[in-house]
């Protein structure tokens, strides 16, 4: 029955059966995995008692792949084949990566020039995409969870920086699929932290989550009220984090060494990694100490021996700290709040341990930040709580997350300008429509170019997708009425449709960013790792179809038993007839026929579902308890 456990999360859980679900914080520097056990969210440890898994992947000469502490220990000896901070490259192409010279990797432009594909890294194991490298980290965490929980996982909630764009989110989802994880939801990191913090402290009011991780900065403002976590605004910088502080220290050290040595030859890849590691250690040391000594020997024989003091660290990284305050101000303005409205500021991410960050946050919000939860673990703990709920486990925490779109979504109009259709910080799910018209007389086709970002020019925004609407009847310029609808679901995934109003001609697209992997690539990669035979696939499809059928019959029968008075007797009969048909088919061997009957049953219950939804809302507004409405 192992196959049944990984099927879509559309089926009802058998009562009292706990479904194993995990929350994963896939971090730039460290990753964690957590789960809810006996009502408590807990971070899972490896055999050595480590909770944090360094996000480091090493490709070994013998073909093995090593992830975590062991890989980290060898990063300076084997920098080219030991990838750290891969999260910074997710959903990115070569042009997106600044300071390439100071990163010891051999970058290769994506293979398909036409669609500006993701960058790749040249390792001894061949070309590797950031998605594949991230999948190795996720596989390690998955194995840890399955070992410690003793079963297969139903699904995972994986956290992403709130300020990640569509390409970065898609890449994260691809990595999870490649690792064999069923993604229940991509959850924004600050929202996950708010869940863990809010539930732990029974907090009510308006809170700011200031999340400075290894490679990303997010700031979110949330209103917590009776179990509803409503994100009012979010902002950030997807390329700013603790790594940049290390890099500043590294540059400072280089300046010192160059000043002391006249004939300073260029650094090798090993030297670069060694100095960056020393820089990170010095930064961490300075959290509790006044000065840090940086001592090491470079490949060219030069001995580095410099002392960095805490005030010097503040000086060389001051502009990075102020770079976090600009998004913070933006979020406050978008939420239309002032400092006095904020009930608490929660610090998240290892980089917020730096005293001058804490000081800057305190200065800005005129209150001492809250640090009573471990800033490294809070995101994973919150993700596990959401995973537990989404997996269908009954939970005492009756919570609901209302998140927002971090970046505006729009269309390209004449002159390379962007017309925003959905503005940033709109609550999900959302649907918005806007009318456009033709530019030329007799124009019969229209190219729809979907972009993401805040700037006015298309060239300054990220391109998400293009599609064409053809068959517009020839009319004078400006006469056609083309209605373009953007829909973003609760997962933050965008779909766009266009419709010419007079003829009703339509075109749809589920946006798959040009940076993501294609469906075929994913399938091939999965095939390569699982090598599943065709028979297997058939058996699995039939098993899944039967589970689907069983689930829908169960839930609709329950709904009829509870609420059949909402519809007419004929409608009830029609639904019952479809149930019977499906019941018969699901005893047979034809997966396609079962799927069709499931669709037919779904179709037959549309009016009933709407009536039930209306009834449940009326009951909610009348203040009645909703417990028995859940299926």
């Amino acid at each position, binding site marked *: 029955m192992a196959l049944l456990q990984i099927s879509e999360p*559309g089926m*009802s859980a058998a009562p009292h059966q706990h479904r194993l679900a995990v929350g994963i914080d896939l971090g730039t520097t460290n990753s964690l995995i957590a789960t809810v056990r006996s009502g408590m969210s807990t971070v899972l440890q490896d055999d050595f008692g480590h909770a944090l898994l360094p996000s480091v992947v090493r490709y070994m000469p013998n073909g093995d792949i090593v992830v975590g502490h062991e890989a980290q220990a060898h990063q300076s000896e084997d920098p080219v084949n030991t990838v750290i901070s891969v999260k910074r490259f997710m959903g990115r192409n070569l042009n997106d990566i600044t300071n390439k010279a100071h990163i010891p990797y051999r970058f290769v432009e994506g293979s398909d020039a036409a669609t500006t594909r993701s960058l790749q890294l040249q390792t001894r194991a061949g070309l590797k995409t950031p998605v594949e490298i991230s999948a190795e980290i996720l596989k390690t965490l998955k194995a840890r969870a399955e070992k410690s929980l003793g079963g297969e996982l139903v699904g995972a909630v994986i956290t992403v920086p709130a300020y990640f764009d569509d390409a970065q989110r898609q890449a994260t989802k691809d990595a999870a699929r490649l690792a064999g994880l069923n993604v229940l939801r991509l959850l924004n990191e600050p929202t996950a932290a708010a869940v863990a913090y809010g539930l732990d402290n029974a907090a009510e009011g308006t809170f700011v989550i200031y999340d400075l991780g290894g490679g990303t900065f997010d700031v979110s403002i949330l209103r917590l009220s009776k179990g509803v976590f409503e994100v009012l605004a979010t902002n950030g910088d997807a390329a700013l984090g603790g790594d940049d502080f290390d890099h500043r220290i590294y540059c400072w050290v280089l300046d010192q060494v160059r000043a002391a040595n006249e004939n300073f030859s260029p650094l090798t890849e090993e030297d670069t990694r060694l100095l960056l590691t020393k820089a990170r250690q010095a930064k961490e040391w300075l959290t509790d100490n006044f000065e840090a000594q940086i001592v090491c020997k470079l490949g060219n024989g030069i001995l580095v021996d410099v002392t960095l003091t805490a005030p010097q660290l503040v000086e060389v990284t001051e502009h990075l700290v102020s770079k976090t305050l600009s998004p913070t101000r933006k979020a406050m303005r978008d939420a239309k709040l002032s400092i006095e409205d904020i009930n608490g500021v929660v610090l998240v991410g290892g980089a917020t341990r730096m005293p001058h960050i804490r000081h800057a946050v305190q200065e800005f919000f005129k209150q001492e930040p809250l640090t009573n939860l471990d800033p490294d673990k809070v995101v994973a703990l919150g993700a596990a709580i959401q995973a537990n709920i989404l997996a269908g486990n009954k939970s005492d925490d009756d919570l609901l997350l209302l998140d927002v779109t971090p970046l505006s979504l729009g269309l390209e109009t004449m002159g390379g300008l962007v017309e925003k259709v959905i503005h940033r910080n709109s609550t999900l799910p959302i649907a918005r429509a806007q009318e456009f018209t033709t530019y030329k007389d007799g124009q019969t086709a229209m190219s729809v170019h979907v972009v993401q970002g805040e700037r006015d020019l298309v060239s300054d925004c990220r391109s998400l997708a293009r599609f064409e609407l053809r068959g517009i009847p020839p009319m004078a310029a400006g006469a056609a009425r083309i209605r373009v609808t953007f829909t973003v679901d609760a997962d933050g995934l965008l779909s766009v449709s266009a419709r010419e109003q007079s003829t009703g001609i339509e075109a749809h697209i589920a946006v798959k960013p040009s940076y993501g992997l294609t469906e075929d690539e994913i399938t091939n990669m999965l095939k390569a790792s699982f090598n599943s035979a065709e028979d297997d696939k058939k058996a699995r499809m039939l098993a899944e179809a039967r589970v689907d059928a069983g689930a829908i019959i169960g839930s609709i029968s329950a709904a009829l038993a509870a609420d059949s008075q909402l519809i007419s007797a004929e409608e009830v009969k029609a639904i019952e007839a479809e149930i019977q048909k499906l019941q018969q088919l699901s005893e047979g061997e034809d997966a396609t026929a079962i799927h069709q009957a499931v669709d037919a049953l779904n179709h037959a219950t549309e009016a009933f579902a*709407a009536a039930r939804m209306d009834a449940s809302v009326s009951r909610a507004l009348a203040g009645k308890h909703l417990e028995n409405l859940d299926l």
Partner: protein
Amino acid sequence: MQSTPPNHFELFSIAEQFNLDTSTLESNYRKIQSAAHPDRFITAPATERLSAMHLATSANEAYSVLKSPAKRAKYMLEQHGIDAIADTNTVMPMDFLMQQMEWRERIEDAKMARDISELDNIADELATEAKALVGDLCELFDIKQDLAAATEITRKLIFIDKVCADIDQVIEQLDH
């Protein structure tokens, strides 16, 4: 869904008036989302998940309209068949146009001088102005039911909203 979808006020079970009770609006919005959000229907059949998605989407849209006074006024006029921002609608009074030009010039000057605190000052003045207009609208919509006068004030409020959005954008550029 239904044959006639409820209007935004009906959806939240609140009285159809401009001077609305924001705390009831907020708490009813949360109640609806708690009952109808797609996350509550993860294990439900596809049709119910779709219904939930529709309802949650309408609730978000209605909430964003009702909580903003300018959008709420525009929406109430639309319910009476009036398009507040139609080109054919009444022109702005001269004194308001003059005041607008003055605001725009001050914003431009502050932008040149990179003076964020001056921009904040202008935004504060606009907020005070908007508050007075909102007071007028309560009377015009709810007591006098004078839609013609309400339309003119609504247009002013929409203009002020636009100027505020422009100020935010300038501050954002300067802050970068």
